[in-house]
């Protein structure tokens, strides 16, 4: 009886939240700040620096949306969320969007009533081994001890992978990434497995990163992307096309350095013109002004710039573009056209 009342109240509250959130854009404008959910801290993706200013790959998406909607990339209230609190924060309306390296899955998209508006990082589960082990492929890991975070999808992926390749392994369960890092360095396991971006940033923190290699096999799909609530498609469109603008801009060669120049007058590329608002009325269609994308690009730069600045090969994390290169460069980043 109590449970039904509780669930009933939850539903009512959910409906109320959905109804009131129907005009997220108006709420954000009235508030003058975008409430953006981020992680409590993940190297390269979101973390405050020594002055308390949030920086990172996911943070850039928040800033781009704020720049497009509010003309101010700093008009963002970053709401740190843990893996456990992120979905309730979004569902309850505490945040307007969530950019927290969240994997796009069927049940999250449908059952939890969220809309993933795209993918800003294609991740996948990988393996890290010490160079001294002399292993060059995950398929050679027969009989290996594997450090694995319990209760995650990586645990299930691991079991699938080893069963499929008909080889055996011995799991060494760990609770957190920090624990996995320590266990691996202490030699408690031959290999450590988690998302490839996580492996890269973990390795970057090692005393001798060059003594460890990340194996080429990626055994799962982890498309990470920003998400919004069901029920406000206009707001979803704004976030989706802001992300697409960052991706398209890289493809079209628009950077934070040349965006002012390109936007000052019509260029000979019609798509650049439509993107930057010197031609057509794309901004108007999503309820913003003509220069929304220009502001987002001027604030954070295009996708490639964001990548290079936060997690690219020149940073300590040193991730290669890989799958996250433009489709023209052999990756799978592919923004629908601005037309």
């Amino acid at each position, binding site marked *: 009886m109590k449970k039904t009342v509780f669930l009933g109240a939850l539903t009512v509250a959910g409906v109320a939240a959905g109804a*009131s959130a129907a005009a997220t854009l108006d709420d954000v404008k009235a508030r003058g700040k975008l409430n953006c959910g981020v992680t*409590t801290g993940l*190297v390269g993706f979101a973390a405050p620096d020594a002055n308390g200013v949030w920086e990172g790959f996911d943070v850039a998406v928040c800033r781009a949306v704020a720049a497009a909607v509010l003309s101010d990339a700093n008009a963002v209230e970053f709401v740190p969320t843990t893996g*456990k609190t992120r979905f309730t924060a979004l569902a309850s309306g505490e945040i307007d969007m969530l950019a927290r390296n969240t994997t796009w899955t069927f049940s999250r998209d449908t059952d939890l009533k969220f809309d993933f508006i795209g993918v800003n990082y294609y991740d996948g589960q990988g393996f890290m081994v010490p160079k001294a082990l002399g292993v060059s492929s995950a398929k050679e890991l027969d009989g290996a001890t594997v450090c694995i975070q319990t209760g995650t999808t990586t645990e299930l992926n691991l079991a699938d992978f080893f069963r499929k390749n008909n080889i055996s392994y011995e799991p060494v369960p760990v609770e957190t990434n920090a624990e996995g890092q320590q266990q691996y360095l202490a030699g408690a396991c031959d290999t450590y497995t988690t998302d490839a971006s996580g492996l890269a940033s973990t390795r970057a923190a090692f*005393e001798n990163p060059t003594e460890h290699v990340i194996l080429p096999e990626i055994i799962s799909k982890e498309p990470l992307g920003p998400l919004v609530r069901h029920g406000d498609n206009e707001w979803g469109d704004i976030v989706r096309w802001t992300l697409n603008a960052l991706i398209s801009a890289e493809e079209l060669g628009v950077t934070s350095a040349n965006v002012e120049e390109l936007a000052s007058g019509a260029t000979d590329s019609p798509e650049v013109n439509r993107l930057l608002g010197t031609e057509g009325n794309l901004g108007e269609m999503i309820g913003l002004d003509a220069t929304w994308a220009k502001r987002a690009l001027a604030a954070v730069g295009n996708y490639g710039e964001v990548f290079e600045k936060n997690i690219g090969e020149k940073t300590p994390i040193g991730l290669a573009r890989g799958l996250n290169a433009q489709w023209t460069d052999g990756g799978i980043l592919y923004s629908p056209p601005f037309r």
Partner: protein
Amino acid sequence: MVQEHFAFVRSTMLPEAPPPAAERGVVKWLRENLFSSAANTLLTVVSLYVVLQIASSAAPWFLNGVWDSPSLTACRDILDGKMGGCFAVLSERWNQLLFGFKYPSELYWRPGLAFVLLFIAGAPLLFYKIFPSKMLIFTGLYPFIAYWLIWGGSVLVPVFALLGVLLGAFVYKRTVGASAGMAVIAGFVAALIFWMLSGFITGPMENVLAIEPVPSRDMGGFMINLMLGVVCVSLSVPFGIALALGRQSSMPIIKWICVVFIEFIRGVPLITLLFVANVVLAYFLPPGTSFDLILRVIIMITMFASAYIAEVIRGGLAALPRGQYEAADSLGLDYAQAMQLIILPQALKISIPGIVNVAVGLFKDTTLVSVISMFDIVGMIRGPILASSEWNGVYWELFGFAALLFFITCYGISQYSQWLERQLQTDHR
């Protein structure tokens, strides 16, 4: 002369000779405490070896420590393969560890001042024999001053809060003659109504004597642990006393309310209550309302601690001989007087170790708020600092620093409680 009958008589006292070398000073202490038997000698030698090993392996880590470096990689370059701690993370991020990463740095003096004033406010309570009781006036004002210093904003908010409390106390005084229970309720209601009405005044006048406001979301670091610890402990002791007395009450409704509250709260883990405060409440509140998160957490932790303290105090009450209750009755004291003058002073004295135990445990439990994405000191370490690309991988230095802060505080509490027990000792042993 009589003396001539004797061959020798000493005319002066012998000077006092020191005890034999083996029976004095360091040697004696060593013989008695460290080398009193073969087995003890062996134990001493082994322990000395272990202590030396630990000290000699830890010493270079402290001595070679790097205090000035922009990042962990730079630290490792400076150390160049030698063993040494990278304490630069503390010298760069100390402010974030203490105040959180969003508290404006030019305002650090405000929580700092509130912290210093805490000792002045606490002194007359904790050392009531030494400090004049007039200082208790400042203790009563302290919560409002501290609130104003830490959160900022208009001075009217704490002033009206204080006036509400005074009004409640006044109503209580006027009605307490009729019935003590009703007086408590009347006083509470009066204060509540006053606070609601004062909202209409403080709302439009929010710039009167205002200092820069800092929202709760911007607080963090050890400051949060201290705030939660101090507020929750000091609130939960009176609530705990009330619950313990309520549980012993002969009035069934009050008794059952207290029993259900205590048993329910004790049956639920603190972390569950914190999740309720953070996540579930958000569903029930209308979207957009932000019921202050710190306030929610304070309420939950206070409820949790009161239930435990109530049981500790009930233990103290149960330990009193029946004769004490009967003696109070036979003197013609009413319930309030009997409790105040005879029962509680004795029961609380018995309960001190238990209360301190709960207080120390509670203070350390405040780090649990890091799982609901509040940046207390542990949350700061696990989140922002370890996630920055400069300091990813520094564990010992950061957690050692947190442990040091907690040790200082908890050891202080423990020493104080032992001192207090000695002060209150009335039996002649």
